[in-house]
């Protein structure tokens, strides 16, 4: 789908916030796609990490809002190991999650988790999952 890039859609404040929280310069990305080719979640994300980087470069906060990529990212760090520009993409994904979570919008509601589903989970699954998906 065509993406309108204009004064109406560019959110510069949000773009600067993402760079501040992540500590990463998104303009370093040259769109080589190595991250997209390395992502283990490629089949299940709405947009590849490469596309996410392009959308941030163009300040497309609204478009990114509808994509599941930051929430399916497992912070496995395969992309950062292979990034030709040395960008720490998991930090960018964390920043994208945090802009939501810090508005008190949880991605997973702990009280909705079914006891039978979580009873066997190791603590590190609960702690890491709730760290990534709740505020």
């Amino acid at each position, binding site marked *: 789908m065509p993406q309108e890039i204009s004064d109406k859609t560019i959110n510069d404040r949000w773009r600067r916030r993402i760079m*501040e*929280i*992540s*500590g990463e310069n998104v303009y370093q990305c040259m769109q080589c796609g190595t991250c997209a080719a390395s992502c*283990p*979640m490629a*089949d*299940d994300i709405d947009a590849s990490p490469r596309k996410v980087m392009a959308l941030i470069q163009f300040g497309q906060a609204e478009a990114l809002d509808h994509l599941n990529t930051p*929430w*399916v990212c*497992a*912070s*496995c*760090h*395969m992309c*950062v*190991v*292979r990034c030709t520009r040395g960008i*720490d993409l*998991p*930090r960018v*994904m*964390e*920043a994208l999650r*945090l802009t939501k979570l810090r508005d008190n919008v949880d*991605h*997973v509601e702990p009280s909705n*988790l079914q006891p039978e*589903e*979580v009873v*066997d*989970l*190791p*603590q*590190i*699954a*609960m*702690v*890491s*999952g*709730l*760290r*990534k*998906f709740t505020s």
Partner: protein
Amino acid sequence: MKISYYPGCTLKTKARNLEDSALACLKALDIEFEELPRWNCCGAVYSLADDDLIHLIAPVRDLIRAKERGADTVLTLCSMCYNTLARANKLMAEDEEKRGTINQFMDEEPDYFGDLKVVHFLDFLRDDYGWDKVKEKVKVPLTGLKAAPYYGCTLTRPKEVAVDRPDKPTILHDFLDALGATTVDFPSTIECCGTYQVLGNPEVALKRSQGILSDATLHGAEALALACPLCDFNLGRRQDQMLEKFEGATEVPIFYFTQLLAVALGVAPDDCRLDLNRPSALSLLKDKQFITV
């Protein structure tokens, strides 16, 4: 070297087979250590936000506890604990500004400067103990066991705390070689099992894990060796769901690397805690006659 052993939450409950077998190995290898008498959760994941220091308090506090015991080395068994503690330690050593803020915030604690060494049992065995010495201690060589080493993410990524080359690690391969097993290399050896997505997107995690298991068996593995309780959960405990859901899925015995070490060292079978694995794990070792009782 004075070693403080940091267990972490999961090892005391859901991953007793990792802790119990590791402690039996440490004893069999005559390695002296002290378990930290007081510790807290490390946080499981390292904070990736530049402005988030509060989540560093937990791991740094653990490091201070180890320092208080007079340790120079913190030994970990869980890959996620290793990653979180090692990254926090590195930040405290290298980032003067953040170190200052954290030390000031924890005013009741002594200042910490990142001067401990945080190791995982695997790199401790390689660098401090030595594969040759491990080989000497092996009483029951795992000859003929076709085991695939599975690294997961947090042992070898990011590279700042990697126990080996992030793109082509060999540490678990070398470990299995030292035990006499036949190491089966496979492409997914460093791929993510789905980790905490078991909470947010359980179906995605299940698919990831099934992909890893089928890749390993395709390359001739009859078992998987790993180091992380969350990998063990995704790849091991969820196998019933995979067998039900995916056509062609087969049972794959999963071992903590410490359990295979314990068996090879001739540790009493009860201390290997194979009773906490899927039944296929013990059956395989009995078939191979590594365990006879």
